[in-house]
Every structure is written in structure tokens, then in C-alpha cells.
């Protein structure tokens, strides 16, 4: 047993291969480029496909075509690319196309700073597409999370047939870090359920008790229809308001009702602590450090590191927030996820620490407030 060293982006690429991803398309953009470059190293020799699109729209378009042809597909970009993905993300949500989207966040707005980190797209990933349906967003803290959560991202994309974001940050994705690969805990791999051979197939038919329709690939022996238009079970445009309402409700419910099954977090709770520090992504590392020092100084403080950001894991949050008088939300932006916390707090005071200057929030900054 020993240690390996790799940046978060390499871990994401290696994990994708492990998860069975055999199709990647992307457009180079700092700080996500090395995911593409690693996939280009890994995929073609395995018989997989790695393409460089003429732009981000083409890249995600390739992925959607491949995903509907049966592939586990992934794309990776940063904020400016997510903007260009937007319309196709709505498509993947509404038409239930499994896809893993890595957003290696950099400092925005707009082209912003290519080589500076931030967590400025946290609301954008959820709401930056038309229709207002939920998406899954997982936020890694370190290189090990990059590995584990990427595999989870594929599992969830397959299970619920939806796009899943990995909300990385330049500070994790391009920081090299040692990792004990033997200690990485990977889930069993999941794949979308195929329609039984003996059953008639309608591309959007939902079996009782199931969250997502059974799948058959475009190019298989039975005909498959996919469409970005509002559709019925048969995959044709529908104007039937009942069908439309039922589908919309299901798209909402399939993720919001199941989020407890994929709420990833780390809780380091201290009895009698009146303050809870809540952080996600790279900022959690400074928070951990701060908690250690504060406790050495005799201060009781709890820490909650959230790794599933969307849908908001309300049950977990409400439980934890009810135990303290004060929650200190720390994030690398000027106040985004704190909105979700505020709406969940009844009697708990919410304190916010944010920064958007391209630098990490330091343990010192957190300690000063706590």
C-alpha cells in the first residue's frame, strides 16, 4: 500500500473510466482542460470515444446523442461553458438523458479569471436552465471525493436518467494531492434499466413505483424516439395537459423525493456546541482546520460539510440546524447557498462568510467570525 499523487481533474477522469464512461466530449477551458486531456489518454485505447467539439454546444450535443445510443457519457467545462450548455441541460432534464457534467468552477462573472477558483456557480447550476426542474449537484472537497463522487455521479445519472453535476473548483481540480487509492470507497456500479425484451416499449413509459423510464438505445433492434419537445409516453409531442402535468410533476418528484438516498455529507458534531459551521467544496478544508484549532482552544463547535448541494437535502439540514443557536455558512462566493440555509432556519441565527477575490478563505477568517 502506498500513496499516489494526482490533481482532482485526473481523479475525475480515472473515476469516470472506472464507472464505465466510454464517451467524453469537451471543449478546452481552464481549469477543466486536463479532464479532457486525461480522457483523451484513457478512452481511445479502451475502444471509447473522446471528442473535442467545435464549441461547448457541440460537445454536450455529442454527449446527448451518445448517451441515447447507450453510452455512459461525460463532459467537462467551467462557468462560461455551462452557459453554453444551458439549453442542452434543459433538454437532458426534460427528456431524461443520463449525463455527467463536470463544472470546474472559476472566478466569474463571465470570462472572469481563468486560473482563479470560486464557487460562484452554485445557484447557476441548479437554475441556469429553462423550465425550473431539479438537478443533482455533488460537490467534492478533495481528490478522494473527486474520485468517489464521480462514480456516484454516474450511478445517479443512470438511476434517475438525468444530468448530474460535479461542482468542482479550480482549487481542487488543479491542485495535486496525494491519495491512497486502496482506501477509496467506491459504490457498486449502476446502469440504467433496460426495457424487458418481452415487454412492449414506449420510451417514456413509467412502471409503477419506478422513478425513471426504462431505456433502449437508439441503434438497437427496437425503435427508440427521443425528443426535446413536451412528449407523452410514446415520445411524440403531446398537448394533453394531464399528461404534461404528470410528467412535469414526476421530473420534480423523482429527485426531490429521493435526495435522502444520495445525501453525501461529513458531520463532525460536538456535544453542547451552539455553533455549526456549514461549508462545502474546498472551503470545507479551511473549516476543518478552523474547527480543530477552535477545539484545541476549548471552544465547542460543530461542522457540517455538505457534498450533495442539489436538490437541497432539507431533512439533514433541518435536523442539524435545529440543534444549534447559530450557523456559520462559509462559501467562496458572495452568498449563494446561504439562501437555502436561511429558508430552512426557524430559530437559528445565520452568519455568512463569503469571499470572491480569487483566494481561498483561510481558517483564520473563519475563526475570527466563530
Amino acid at each position, binding site marked *: *500500500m*502506498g*500513496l*499516489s*499523487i494526482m490533481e482532482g481533474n*485526473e481523479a475525475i477522469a*480515472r473515476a469516470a473510466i472506472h464507472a464505465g464512461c466510454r*464517451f467524453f466530449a469537451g471543449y478546452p477551458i481552464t481549469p477543466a482542460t486536463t479532464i479532457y486531456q486525461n480522457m483523451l*489518454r484513457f478512452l*481511445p*485505447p479502451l*475502444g471509447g470515444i473522446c*471528442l473535442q*467539439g*467545435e*464549441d461547448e*454546444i*457541440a460537445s*454536450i*450535443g*455529442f454527449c*446527448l*446523442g*451518445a*448517451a*441515447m*445510443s*447507450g*453510452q455512459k457519457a461525460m463532459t467537462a467545462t467551467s462557468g462560461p461553458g455551462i452557459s453554453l450548455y444551458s*439549453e*442542452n441541460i434543459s433538454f437532458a432534464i426534460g427528456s431524461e438523458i443520463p449525463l455527467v457534467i463536470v463544472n470546474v468552477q472559476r472566478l466569474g462573472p463571465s470570462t472572469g479569471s*481563468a486560473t482563479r477558483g470560486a464557487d460562484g456557480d452554485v445557484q447557476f447550476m441548479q437554475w441556469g436552465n429553462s423550465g425550473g426542474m431539479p438537478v443533482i449537484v455533488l460537490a467534492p472537497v*478533495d481528490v478522494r471525493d473527486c474520485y468517489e463522487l464521480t462514480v456516484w455521479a454516474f450511478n445517479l445519472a443512470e438511476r434517475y436518467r438525468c444530468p448530474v453535476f460535479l461542482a468542482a473548483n479550480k*482549487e481542487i481540480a*488543479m*491542485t*495535486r*494531492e*496525494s491519495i491512497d*487509492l486502496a482506501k477509496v470507497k467506491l459504490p457498486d456500479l449502476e446502469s440504467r434499466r433496460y426495457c424487458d425484451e418481452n415487454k412492449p416499449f414506449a420510451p417514456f413509459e413509467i412502471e409503477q413505483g419506478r422513478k425513471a423510464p426504462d431505456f433502449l438505445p*437508439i*441503434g*438497437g433492434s*427496437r*425503435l*427508440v*424516439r427521443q*425528443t426535446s*419537445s413536451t412528449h407523452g409516453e410514446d*415520445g411524440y*409531442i403531446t398537448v394533453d395537459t394531464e399528461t404534461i402535468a404528470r410528467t412535469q410533476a414526476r421530473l420534480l418528484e423523482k429527485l426531490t423525493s429521493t435526495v435522502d438516498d444520495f445525501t453525501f455529507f461529513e458531520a463532525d458534531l460536538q456535544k453542547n456546541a451552539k455553533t455549526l459551521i456549514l461549508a462545502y467544496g*474546498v472551503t470545507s*478544508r*479551511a473549516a*476543518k*482546520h478552523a474547527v*480543530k484549532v477552535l477545539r484545541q482552544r476549548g471552544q465547542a463547535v460543530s461542522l457540517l460539510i455538505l457534498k450533495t448541494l442539489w436538490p437541497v437535502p432539507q431533512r439533514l439540514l433541518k435536523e442539524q440546524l435545529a440543534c444549534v443557536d447559530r450557523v456559520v455558512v462559509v462559501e467562496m462566493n458572495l452568498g449563494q447557498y446561504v439562501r437555502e440555509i436561511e429558508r430552512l432556519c426557524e430559530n437559528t441565527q445565520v452568519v455568512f462568510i463569503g469571499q470572491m477575490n480569487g483566494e*481561498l478563505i*483561510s*481558517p483564520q477568517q473563519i475563526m475570527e467570525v466563530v
Partner: protein
Amino acid sequence: MTNLLNKKRPPAFCAGCAHDRVILALDQAFGDQGLAGEDIAMVSDIGCSGLFDTFFNTHAFHGLHGRALTYGTGIKMAQPELNVVVTMGDGGLGIGGAHVLSTCRRNIDVTLLVLNNFNYGMTGGQCSVTTPMDAQVSSGFLNRLEPPMDICMVAAAAGAPYVARCSAYQKDLALQIQKALTYKGFSLIDIWGVCPGRYTKRNPLTPGQIKERMGELPAADGLVTQNQRMEYGSHYRKVASGLEQAPDAVCVERSFDPVFEDRREVLLLGSAGQRIVTAGEILCLAGMTGGMHATQKNDYPITVLRGHSVSEVVFDKEGVGYTGLDNPCVVIALAPEGVNRRKSKFAEFDKDTVIIRAAGIELPDCRARVITVDFKAHKIKKTDWALAALAVLARENIVITIDMLEKALTCRFKGDVLAAALKLVHTNFKILQKRQN
């Protein structure tokens, strides 16, 4: 002959719409080739032509405006045996221009039928990239300012190996489509037709006039001789089959006891070309041979051949938490660019910080202990200073030992490069040790 028309969903275009003719010709082309529905994927764009996929019993994919070629490309790469037919109007052609050009250049085995009726039918007859300047359309005077584009000329210039211009009214349309379908590579047919719903009311256009106008343009009747080459997917698979699998991540075994127990930070300051990032990585590996966890953060301008190069390395046995630098125990200063980049930090360094400085490099005022090394005097090349500085670090026994450093080099390098690196480190270690004694 099989018929792939979807009996449950007959075409529902305006009376007299040219799309009806193309549907029949396309079905005939499928039939003449003996294709079954599962052999075909119809990928449609937005607009009236976006309905095409629903009229056939084939695999179907209907997506966003202008992006049909991107989905078709993904499908074809994933399912190489499938016949992928993309339909789009002159609207899709305009909004998806980048994809059209790229697909021509890529030469993937997909057939694109451009249903060219010189306006946006579905949204009310606005001008498109193919609207004549003298046409009356719903875009007011705007179409009088921009000449129409000849998609056939554009496609050929962009590298399409098969480009044909057809009229929806020509007798052999099915044959023309079939020729495009069987071409192994990207094929595009620019099919001219009328849109009675929106366009021809104000712009009378007969099949005869279409033929006449087509005749005024340069001919496009199939093979583009200068663009013949291997199809993208086949080429891709051929090249990929010869590639070697990427190696697994290197694993560094713990071979030594660590030099320290707590968190340690090292800051490397240099300039482009000094191999600062490589030295940072070797330092990490060296620490890892002592069982330490490590992180490395690099900072260099996008113009990689110029300016500063800074690497920040943090060690911690339990795993590194905060990856920022708080209080480095060692600073390696090899170039003014790097020193400048972090000059505000120097005031914070305390007396326990050791700075390994290349002779001649000016440092801002600070309380740190400075070790100056005259690399030039030892005839060490500038590109090797960073590695040599690690040997100095090993001599000081602050973070790593010389054994760790040597072990790290064997993890990172092979052959001649390794031999040279080991020699460099070893010689310097000796020289520098001697100097110290």
C-alpha cells in the same frame, strides 16, 4: 420494397409544401436501399423540418435548434453501423453554422438534408441565411442588406466530400438522396423547395424558376474531388486501435520514517523554464516516501514561457486540510519573477523559516534564515537549479532527506533522465555538504 412511412402520423404540412415531396423521396431512397427502420436514425432540427422524424418508423432524435448535427455525430460515433440522416431547414443552417462547417471538415458518415425554402416558415416567414435580397419577408428591409449564402460552395470550401444541390421537384430526387446516403463520409444535399404557408404568397416561385435559379449557381452534383479522404469514425477507430493503454497512477510506497510529524509548508519561487512545477512534484513524492500526505498548488501565467512560476507544497501526515500557505518552513527563491509574485508574504516569515536563495536574487526584508547557494559557480544549469535546491533542502534535513529525494526521482523519471537527475542531486548534495563542513 419496404415502406418506412409512419402510417399513424401522416405528414401535416401546408398544402403544396415542398417538404411532402422530400418525405416521399427519402422514403423511396430508404426502400431502394432495403433499409429497415432500426438501421436508420432520423435526427431532426427545429422548424417545420423538425417534424420529419415523426413521419418515419425509424429511430428518432429531435433536439434543439441548429444542433441536430451534434446529436447525429454523437449517435454515429456510438453506433457506427447506423445510417444517420439529419434534416434541417435554412434556419438550422444559419444558427448551427459552426456545426455545419465542422461536420464538413470532420467528414463523419452522416447525411444532411437541408430543406431550403428561403425563410423561417414556422415562426412567420422571417429571413434566413438563404433568403434572396429582393424577397419580401417578415423581417422588413433586413434581408435587403445581406446576400444569401450558397451552402454548397461553403460546404465544399469547408471540406465536405459530397455536396449536391437538388430541387424538390426534380424527378430523380430519390436517387440523389440515395447516392448521398450510400456515400461513406459526410454528404450534404441542399434541397430547394417552396413554402406556400409563408414565403411564396409574396414571392411567387415555380419549380421552373427554382431550376432556373439553381442553374445560375456553380454546379454541385455530388463528389467533391479535392475533398475525398477517409471517413472520420473509421479513421478514429483505426488510429485508436494502435494506441497503448495509459498507465495506472504511480504508487509510492512508504520507505522511510518522516523527518517531521506536524504540518509543513514549502514555497518554491522561480520563473518560467526553471522546472519549478516538476521540482514541486518531486518534493511531494519525496515526502510521500516518508508516508506524508502532500498537496501541490501551482501558479503561473497563461503565457507559460514567460513570467513567474510558483509552487506551494503542503505536507501533513493525516492528510492536508487547508491547501493555502500559512507559515512556510522553507522558501526556495530562484528568480525575481517568483519572489515578486509573493513579495507581500516575506514580512510574515519568521526566524524559523529557511530561505534557500540563488546567489544574486534580491529578497524583500524578512526575518527568515537565508542560505545562499551559488548555483552558477557550481556550473549548474539554470533549468536544474530547482532540483539542486531540493538537494540543499535534503542536506538541511528540514522536510526531506537525500534518500527520500533519490527515491522520489526513481518514481518520477526513467533511464538517462533519471541517471542525470540522480547525478545532479548527488553531486550537489556532496558539494554542498562539503561546503557546510
